[in-house]
């Protein structure tokens, strides 16, 4: 019923015996204590608030078991800033008022961060398409799109 697993999160190694059924998002929040990753839907995995990086790729951590991440690298929103220096994306979100309640923000930052690596010069349509897996209720998305556009431009 339990399994001892090792997961590296934001560069730090965590080893723990966990129930096999424990969701990855719960490992991140409850075992590692990193509460920046949020849960906003039940089992459907549609909202994207739980998005993290698994080996550098954006995935929904509510649709994985913690045991599936055994031996893998996870990056969460807490790992975006380097040595306390906010990433270009995080700064752009602040500049463009791309968040209101902030509940979707972590997931969007993680998705956008990987998206920009894959598509460094996206059009607005491509940005909007990339955000299909992240629901936002407050902003209407416009400022989020602006922030991502700017971050793409500034990344050089």
């Amino acid at each position, binding site marked *: 019923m339990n399994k001892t697993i090792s997961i590296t999160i934001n560069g730090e190694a965590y080893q723990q015996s966990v129930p096999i059924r424990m969701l990855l998002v719960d490992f991140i929040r409850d075992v590692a204590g990193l509460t920046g990753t*949020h849960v906003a839907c039940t089992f459907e995995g549609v909202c994207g608030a739980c998005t993290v990086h698994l080996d550098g790729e954006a995935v929904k951590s509510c649709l994985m078991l913690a045991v599936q991440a055994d031996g893998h690298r996870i990056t969460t929103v807490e790992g975006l800033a380097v040595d306390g220096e906010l990433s270009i994306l995080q700064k752009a979100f602040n500049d463009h008022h791309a968040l209101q309640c902030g509940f979707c923000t972590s997931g969007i930052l993680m998705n956008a961060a990987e998206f920009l690596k894959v598509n460094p010069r996206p059009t607005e349509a491509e940005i909007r398409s990339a955000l299909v897996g992240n629901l936002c209720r407050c902003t209407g998305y416009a*400022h989020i799109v602006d922030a991502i556009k700017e971050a793409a431009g500034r990344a050089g």
Partner: protein
Amino acid sequence: MTSTINMPHDRHPRSSNWVGRQFSRKEDHRLTTGKGQYFADILVPGMLHLVFVRSTHAHARIKRIDSSAARALPGVVAVVTGADIKDQIKSLPQPVVVPALPARYPTFWPLAVDKVKFHGEPVAAVIARDKYVAEDAAELVEVEYEALPHVRNMETALDPAAPLVHEGWPDNEMFALTFTGGGTPETQAANDAEVDGLIRAADVLVKQRYRVHRCGVTPLETRGALATWDDGDGMTAWITTQRPHIDRLAMSDVLDIPAEKLRVIAPRDQGGGFGVKAPFYREPILVCYMARKLKRPVRWLETREEHLMSVSQERDQMHDLEVAATKDGRIVALRDRGLADNGDGCEGVYWGYLMPFLGAALLPNAYDLPKCDIKIRVACTNKAVLSPARSFGAFPARFALERSIDKIARRIGKDPAEVRRINFIRSLPHVTATGVNYDSGDFLKVWDLLIKTIDLPKFRAEQQEARRQGRYIGLGFGVGAELSGVASSVLVPMENQPGYGAATVRLDPRGKVLVFEGDAPGGQGHETTMAQVVAQEFGIHPNDVIVAHGDTGTTPFGSGTIGARSGSYTVSAISIACRFLKKKIARIMAHDLKLDADPSDFVFGDGQIVFTKDDNIRKTFREMVERIIMAPLNLPQGESGGLEHTAFFEADAPMICFSAHACFVEVDAKTGQFKITRYVTSEDVGTVINPQIVEAQVQGGVVQGISNALFEQFVYDEAGQQLTSTFENYKLATAADVPSIEVHHEAGTPCPHTPLGSRGLGEGIPGAVPGAVTNAVCDALQPFGVEIDELPLRPDRIWRALKAATEKTAAE
């Protein structure tokens, strides 16, 4: 209390103009680095997890509940049912959560007692040490039901033969009211007769039934409650609420806890509210009760499924609307019979019916309609009760009237823009036929800016050309005269609660400021906008101002973050408190410097306080503050040390905020699919405190309106089963489904009733949207004569209307 206060804008040094200035939000640092402090992030050692068992029937008697298997599961601490708590917890209604309006108030407890009235009603609760185990145990609770015939919808609810949702009621009508014609049956009858006469005699009459579906503004963060109990200190409860002070009073009544021993804390960060987190709900009551009973911390974190089954359901109204006009398009009379589907009606504070109530009161919108006959009925059915959503109750009636105005325009061959302009209220203040006060504003100015921005004549030319090419583009309008805060004169009768804004402003000896306010924001940026207001007042930097909110233990009473209060009422209270303290500082400074001066001779800016008659005479803000707090010697007669003040603001008139929307669409006449190609708004928000935040409120509000009108729908099937309890089925707009909104506030006028001239924005924005989008589609399809009078606005509905229209034309 206060009326006009002039802003000594020109006398402030340039660098202290924080109001109206772009300033990045202070909240963002923690929210973009994963350090938000939301409800689910709060942990208390030894916290137990509570999971609800919910009804699988729309209407059924509870024959038996067997929780033995659940109890036997290791890690389960307790299982509780309605029968267990019925004599332990006071049922609702209790006074503080009951409006002073004549309605029937159903008796209910946090768990169903005797019977269940909707699919999803809480029936039992399981409490366990582990949240996964709690769910396992909930599955083991066996409930035996005896199904009862259920009330399917509002149409059948008021049938004499309909089953009763609430035993002992003569029928399923929860509330009914006439909103026009004064206060007595005689005056109302006279008014009804007059309106009837005008309708019969009118040149043009548009008579239509409109139906708006069940949808709401579900926030991304679900609800939760976490309570701790100590026999000495009493209870501390964290609740995802927009109204912690109200919840505290209500909880105190229901659980018999002295109010001073109950502290309710709205978490510092909340993932949206939009009205959904305003009522006093069942679940937190049970959580608090169990924490006290077990003397251990108990937490409930709502799942999305629970949420969509039991809250966020709003709108769901029918309107039989008659609008009579002259042949020039001037409306002469309006008659509306509204009907709302209120589900089981069990909800503290709002009882579901307050939304259609306010919607009816606001039905006249921004139009000058002196002769109205408006009545509503609110019916109970076997569904979840309505819970508030942005555009509180007004979304369906806005849709109805905007559609009717377009029909009038088509009937008389005028542009819908022109017909609207003819009918806008021209002179404010204005009292509507329903008795609602609109304080100020220049609607024509706001409207004209919209029309100029969209270049109406150019569009009509493009539209004609497009039609020649077999392309169907259209333009639709919607407007909203929305609440800007809620005055006590409205809130006391409506909800038995005060409307004033309140804030405590506390200066510290180092010249920094702490603000305490009792509302509970969910994304509106209070920590930033309020800091900007304080910074402007004292001439300091917003980073030197900290705003704390939502904790009943430390903040003055506030009715909560509802009805656009913060931008209208709460910031006003903050201004007033600041000005009080500035006067005190100025008096003491004058005394210290032996100046013959009064407070208006001093200007605060750039961290300094300057004597205007000789600007060599100045002190720093910090040194004056430190002197008054830490060295209170040689003070003027009657003056004491310390610098802290709590102020209450009541506007001397209920205030509104007007906005006008224009929506452009292109429709594929073969499939009914359409795209919103452009969406423009013009609104009057008075003095803008933070331009980005104001603009973002409109972006978000319009997209919520679009999502509601097009994609979202709560569906109950013939058996009363709710089918839309996941985001797969209750579909929210994604970024790829909506455009950016073009937002304009240049045509605003400062509100004369608030110290800053600001108006509260945000509450009603979605209300103008369904009319704008639907009118645009109908405008595009005018060659076919398609009229859509029912929402949601879906391609298949449009396609069927097109088919019917083309078949009709073929037959003729």
